[in-house]
């Protein structure tokens, strides 16, 4: 996993509550056995019409959001299916940070395991971000170390210290857990 530090990028707003993982990546694209290459299918049913042509109204297809790498959305982002293909698709498309007032649990975990930073902000602050990024091109800088977002905005955010450490160091969690092998073996022995 790539370590996460300070990141600067263009903001794209998805002005919806309850964006589910079926929208982030529809099921017909879950058949691949690789981890890469899912970005082309991100928000597929919103980005493309039924003939596979780009839907010009969908926000990611608008020229001013080309190259966006920070996604801002409303409550309960990533609800529904546990498919890790959702963060894979977001990451492969170029998103590195997702900001919302709340996230569904499994999606939140899945992002962290892939080095995608999920930032929880107060709904009013998210609303300001969404409106600002709809009006003009908005670039933000996100510092995980200092837990702060800057760039016309200055917002502090909270994050679980363990999650923060894992993201900053980009650690292989399995290797970390394997260092507890003695304890795992002892647990198994005691239960046997």
């Amino acid at each position: 996993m790539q370590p996460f530090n300070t990141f600067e990028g263009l903001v794209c707003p998805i002005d919806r509550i309850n964006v589910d993982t079926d929208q982030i990546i529809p099921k017909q694209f879950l058949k691949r056995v690789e981890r890469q290459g899912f970005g082309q299918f991100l928000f597929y049913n919103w980005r493309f019409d039924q003939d596979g042509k780009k839907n010009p109204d969908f926000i990611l297809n608008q020229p001013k959001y080309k190259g966006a790498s920070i996604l801002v959305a409303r409550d309960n982002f990533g609800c529904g299916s546990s498919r890790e293909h959702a963060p894979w698709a977001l990451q492969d498309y170029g998103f590195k940070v997702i900001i919302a007032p709340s996230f569904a649990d499994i999606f939140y975990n899945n992002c962290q395991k892939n080095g995608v930073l999920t930032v929880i902000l107060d709904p009013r602050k998210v609303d300001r971000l969404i409106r600002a990024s709809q009006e003009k091109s908005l670039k933000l800088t996100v510092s995980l170390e200092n837990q702060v977002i800057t760039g016309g905005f200055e917002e502090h955010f909270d994050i679980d210290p363990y999650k923060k450490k894992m993201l900053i160091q980009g650690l292989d969690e399995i290797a970390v857990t394997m260092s507890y092998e003695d304890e795992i073996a002892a647990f198994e022995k005691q239960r046997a």
Partner: protein
Amino acid sequence: MKPRTIADKIWEKHVVHREKGKPDLLYVDLHLIHEVTTPQAFGGLRMNRRKVRRPDLTFATVDHDVPTSENRETKDPISKVQISTLEKNCKDFGIRMADIYSPMQGIVHVIGPQLGLTQPGKTIVCGDSHTSTHGAFGALAFGIGTSEVEHVLATQTIWQKKPKTMEIKVNGRLGFGVGAKDLILAIIAKYGIAVGTGCIAEYTGEAVHSLSMEERMTVCNMSIEAGARAGLISPDQTTIDYVKDRPFAPKGAAFEKAAREWLSLATDKGAVYDKTIEIDANEIKPQVTWGTNPSMGASIEDTVPDPDSFATEEKRESAAKALAYMDLKSGTPIRDIPIDVVFIGSCTNSRISDLRQAAQVVRGHHVANGVRALVVPGSQQIRKQAETEGLDTIFTDAGFEWRQPGCSMCLAMNDDIVPAGKRCASTSNRNFEGRQGAGSRTHLVSPAMAAAAAISGHFADVRDLVETK
């Protein structure tokens, strides 16, 4: 000792490592795997030359991609690779697998309980959000992503911050013609799809403990649709009776000992939950969802709501978008909504009692003109049982398709797809946009209500169609 909830008891029994400032490292008793969320996990193991730590605690089947046609031939070459990849991974890593020709094959959340792999007090994970189903047994069961699947394969453990506990107290009793599916849909309609975020939900109350195990599975299955990490029910005699004599359950004296331990896991009197929500079972009527998330629900007696009737701007916008997608007008009686497709199946409602309920409604009737209706049993064992009881004939005589087990039209990864613009009465768990096929429109209902819709051609109140016993 301080009274504890079942969630607390199971959690404490599974902590391998605890350290301040870190999540707990929990031991996993059962890891269920399927073809869609595992190939990348095994890929990671191979790349790092790691082994599966406990193949004996891992069990695989194929369900998401597989065709439900009689010959079970996968036409899609990409699905074919995904299925054969799981077969190869299981073979190489020594994992037991119920492949497509196995008499044990079926939907992962149906076969776990059926085989007795699912037992009270276990920690159970699977790369599928509906793993909450197994909570019906008083197990701590939750869905995980593929990175976590890889982690569990390699270490048989998972890092988890302890969620909060939430009691969902169901008072009274469900009325005639109202089932477990109506109960869970009503809970979600009342409290929303995020009420359980960050929580383990425990269903309590008379109405819950009077449910059969299969009905409890339907309720716990949709805990994730209420946003909960897991959903469970304290074990009682119904639980013990169900697990007894299952192939992977303990036998003889070992079973008696286990049963005593399982019963002792039940939440202690006076235990405190972080949060409690309540619903009155007596007031619940047969449910039908009208929108594009599971909380957008109404009863069969209601009309499609007016978006302006919602409290916040976000919800008004969301309801308006949902009605546009669903092509519904507010004020339309739910029972006047015509349907094109009926799907009876999925990890929510494909068990033998679900099929019996649907068959009871269908018997002596025929599927309405122009409606395509499918029954997809949850497992080979259920299919066989239904055939022994003659349910298959009731369905096929009525014009239903009688298919082979799999997830099928719940998520439409195989060929069972609802065409764009068509409307489906579905016993599955999600009515998200495009869930059953791009442009498809899903209404979530119980098996009995799906059957009633199939023979009526529109939604109908099952209480009018089935005589009171």
